[in-house]
């Protein structure tokens, strides 16, 4: 495969692919801004693996994988929220167990997928298959991106305060628990709807890497919320191009590009400059 694919593909398909890539880049990195700042990355890994497991179960039952991915990641978000807050167990232990459990479930469910589908559809949920994205899925992503952006704008004060320090936000009279659960819930939905682009194993690169890169450049949280999605778009599109050029799975290409992007941003970070 090479860049000629852009000329071969029908315009409508190309628009769907590019729109899906950009929207997934925006929505993942937008949620990543909170996930990274609130040190919830392990929790997010669990959700992405849960979405992968759900998707695999959907395929095994010959039912729509998207809805199963959605149900699984939301379920994990709903379980993890209270568990990490209230349980006597260390959050790392709970996350470690769920992390391996969801992965094991995903791989087990993959075994039940009929042989004919295993090579194509099943692999697409592992590594992503942007070429298989439908216009309906792009619409879902567009609605999700719009909704999350609107929620962040409406409750910017509360999200900003929680992102600074949850305990201090609580002390100032903000009901932090609903917002904390909202972040987990929205991350779960984001993971499920973006699975098609990057795949269950690497979706988290698109959540963590652009946001982490944006954090290297700005001291103002508003700027990070603006630049993180822009990095998300840039990394996603660059990954897409790289995947076509080198015939790589899209998910892997995006993970590689965004990781390199993060490395470069650390090197050039004005926040890390001394003096």
């Amino acid at each position: 495969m090479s860049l000629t694919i852009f000329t071969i593909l029908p315009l409508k398909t190309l628009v769907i692919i590019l729109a899906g890539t950009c929207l997934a880049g925006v929505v993942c990195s937008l949620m990543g801004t909170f996930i990274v700042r609130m040190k919830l990355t392990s929790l997010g890994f669990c959700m992405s693996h849960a979405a992968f497991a759900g998707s695999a179960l959907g395929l095994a039952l010959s039912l729509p994988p998207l809805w199963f991915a959605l149900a699984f990641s939301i379920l994990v978000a709903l379980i993890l929220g209270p568990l990490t807050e209230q349980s006597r167990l260390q959050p790392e232990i709970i996350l470690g167990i769920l992390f391996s459990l969801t992965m094991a479930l995903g791989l087990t469910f993959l075994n039940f997928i009929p042989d004919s589908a295993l090579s194509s559809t099943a692999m697409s949920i592992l590594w992503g298959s942007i070429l298989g994205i439908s216009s309906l899925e792009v619409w879902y992503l567009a609605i999700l991106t719009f909704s999350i952006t609107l929620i962040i704008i409406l409750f910017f004060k509360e999200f900003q305060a929680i992102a600074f320090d949850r305990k201090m936000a609580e002390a100032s009279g903000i009901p932090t628990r609903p917002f904390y659960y909202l972040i987990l819930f929205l991350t779960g939905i984001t993971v499920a709807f973006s699975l098609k682009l990057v795949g269950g194993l690497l979706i988290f690169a698109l959540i963590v890497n652009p946001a982490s890169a944006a954090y290297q450049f700005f001291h103002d949280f508003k700027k990070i919320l603006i630049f993180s999605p822009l990095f998300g778009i840039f990394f996603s599109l660059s990954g897409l191009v790289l995947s076509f050029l080198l015939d790589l799975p899209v998910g892997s290409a995006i993970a590689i590009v965004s990781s390199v992007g993060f490395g470069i941003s650390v090197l050039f970070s004005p926040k890390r400059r001394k003096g």
Partner: protein
Amino acid sequence: MSQPKIIEMNKVSTIYEGEKTPALFDINLSLNEGELVCIIGPNGAGKTTLLETLNGLLPHTKGEIRILGQDIKKKGIYLRKQIGYLPQEFTVDPLTPFLVKDIILMGRYGQIGLLKKIPKNDYILMEESLKLMGIIDLKDRPIGKLSGGQLQKVMLARVFAKKPALLFLDEPFSNLDYHTTHRVILQISRAHDQNHWTTLLVMHDLNLIPERCNRILYLEDGRIVKDDIPEKVLTEKLLEISVR
């Protein structure tokens, strides 16, 4: 007619998760409006636990706490909007992406409420509190780039900008130099009187207890051992124990 009680604790105990011994045990306390009370005691006596239990950040396991006449367990979010709280030894990561002005304003977000824009007056309060602490020049600086003393001043400015009814300060002078400490003591005392605050101050250094302080609570092993006017609490024996 007796003065209304601003803070009332009846047989309150707090046990940390997984612990058997209560960090606070059977605490009875009542504070009137306008009191400036210092909490002293050795390390691990329960001073910070008392403040965090009072503002509901740490749920108590027994007894009842009423702040401004309302149950902290039921009305915690509402009541915390009326409390200015400075935690002990607050630190931030050097890459923290927030500016000093944002941090001050955030202290007021609870009072502003959901789905509401930050009123113009809040920006004025933010600037006034920064001027009060003598750090107006830090307004646009990233919070992560400040020294420990500057950060402490910013957190104090945040509490002042909140214009609370109650002030809970946990070792507010821990990172401040000698001159700043004395200036801040004066400012706290002055603001306390001007705003009719009810103030609780956790102190480690007994030499820094403000003159304005009208009552001292001495805590030991999670219990209030002494509760009286400074002259009666600060006995030679107690001073000896607390410096140990």
